[in-house]
């Protein structure tokens, strides 16, 4: 099992009280799966994604990655975990505006080592793979939304992660481009055996997952694996 969540809770303190963004959630995510998370706004989708990516610590409960309890790591180890094992694809693309397409990929490679020649070669391969080999020196503002997202996907794959986390990756794209980006994510999942967890509002996008999770008020509301709705008691402690 790649990821195991056990009684995971994340609370936020607001001036009018405490809100459980994720509420006592237990879940197993197998290696090589494509998990989609849906739910209304405020259901805890993004909070769950942040915890899965080592970007946010849970208030209580455990999150294990390949058997190692991630939430016990210090800041630097969490950063190392993210650079080695996790790729992120964001709705807003999260590209650095003053870096070219190839440089945006190289900054991710740079975290692991400074061999510029090798890093450049790897970045070029990735750009080629996403079909942007002729846009290497273009800045984000010179690229279309779809192209920017493809650069973001290339960067997410730079360090060959086991886990790809996507937060509304098609949220800023028109339907045609959305399908193209979702196709790329599916290809990554199938060909590279990379586990993909995608948060989405779109029912069409959710269909790309082999496991579909629906959250409501931070709790697991529904789970559908390979089109078969499982007995939730099996997965929820």
């Amino acid at each position: 099992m790649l990821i195991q969540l056990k009684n995971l809770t994340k609370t936020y303190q607001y001036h009018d009280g405490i809100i459980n963004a994720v509420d006592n959630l237990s879940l197993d995510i197998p290696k090589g799966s494509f998990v989609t998370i849906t739910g209304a706004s405020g259901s805890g989708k993004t909070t769950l994604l942040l915890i899965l990516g080592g970007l946010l610590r849970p208030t209580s409960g455990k999150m294990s990655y390949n058997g190692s309890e991630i939430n016990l790591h210090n800041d630097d180890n969490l950063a190392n975990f993210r650079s080695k094992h996790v790729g992120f694809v964001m709705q807003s693309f999260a590209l650095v505006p003053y870096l070219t397409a190839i440089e945006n990929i190289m900054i991710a490679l740079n975290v692991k080592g400074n061999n510029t020649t090798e890093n450049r070669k790897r970045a070029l391969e990735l750009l080629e793979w996403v079909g942007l080999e002729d846009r290497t020196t273009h800045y984000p503002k010179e690229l279309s939304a779809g192209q920017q997202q493809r650069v973001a996907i290339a960067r997410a794959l730079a360090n060959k992660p086991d886990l790809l986390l996507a937060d509304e990756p098609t949220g800023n794209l028109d339907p045609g481009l959305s399908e193209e980006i979702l196709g790329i994510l599916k290809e990554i999942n199938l060909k590279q055996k990379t586990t993909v967890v995608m948060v989405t509002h779109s029912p069409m996008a959710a269909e790309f997952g082999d496991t579909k999770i629906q959250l409501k008020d931070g709790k697991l509301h529904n789970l559908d694996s390979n089109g078969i709705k499982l007995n939730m008691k099996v997965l929820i402690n």
Partner: protein
Amino acid sequence: MSLTDLTLKELWHRKSQLVSGLLAITLGIGVIVGIRSFLVVSEKAVAVNLDNLGANILVLPQSSSIDNYYAADIDASTFPEDYVERLVTSTIPGVDNISPKLTRRVKVGSENIVLTGIWPKSEIASKPIWQQGGLKGEALTASCAPTGPKKYADAKLQRKGIDTLANNDCFIGSGIASRLKLIEGSKLTIMEKEFTVAKLLPETGTVDDDRVFANLHTVQALLGTGEQISAIEIMGCCSAISDGLLGKLRNVLPDTRITTIGQIVSTQIENNKLMTKISLVFLIIIIFVGGISIGNYIWANVNERRKEIGILRMIGYHKKHIYYILVLKGIIIGFLGGIAGYIVGTLAAIWLGPQFAGIAVSPIYTLLLVSIALSISISILGSVIPAYLAGKIEPFSNMQED
């Protein structure tokens, strides 16, 4: 794509911000460089003024005053010539030349003249005008002049001893020469001793115009004073005077009156001290204001880059990498600001110096390194806190929260 490349690219991307950030540190460093440039030139001016004065310390008998000395009071008391030996053997630092004198008012025919006995080798051709008149000798070494005597821009102002003055020779002031109708080579009889006029001194407008300078020992013999002198003129270093040279001299010659000639030396020393203090005050203000300005600039930059910093943290950059990027940015701005501040300050001093202070200011190249070091230090101080706070930016700052 190293962190340094990343920093440089960001700086270049936000050029207009870079200019405004640079402006504060440039102006601050410029003020320091400008003041310092003035100060150094002013110190040199003091040294030159000392040369103009020649001697700047007078040793007189206890009962005499400077007025007696300048009036060449006929009844002025004397002290033994071996006081000179005491000074020479005391090796007090800052005493560059010792010139004993015996002065008396005497009559030549119906004319009153001031007969002054001097030691040729140690008598300073102090007034540049003397040197213009052709009196030349070996340059004297000033032990603590700011740049050394041989580096003075105006060669006429170098301190030189009068080369030779034979026992029967004399130099005469322009007033005497005019009244007695003397020219170089003329014979002049004083108290039945015949002197040859070796040199006519140019007009100075001072009591020197009525003086006849002759060899000290000849004058002592002529006046029958024995080995007595009426004054010792000392060329003391400006900085040594301010460091208590007079007190040290008084310890060696306790039964004499020791004083500086003129207020100019002390006034200029005080001016320099004041300038140094002002410079220090400016330095402290600029460290605070410059540090705060750079801090404000970096903090504004951090706020603008929250999303970008979040991206870097998300893909695995550590806090220390964020610190590095921001402090490096501060160092680069400090480096550029140091150079720009040096140029602005130096140009301002060169331009304003002659107009407002009548002083020609030259660039001081060593100040460039000081400017860069100071500017970088201020910038590092200013960027540390914003960098620390930037490290606290969450790695998910670029994500849309549910």
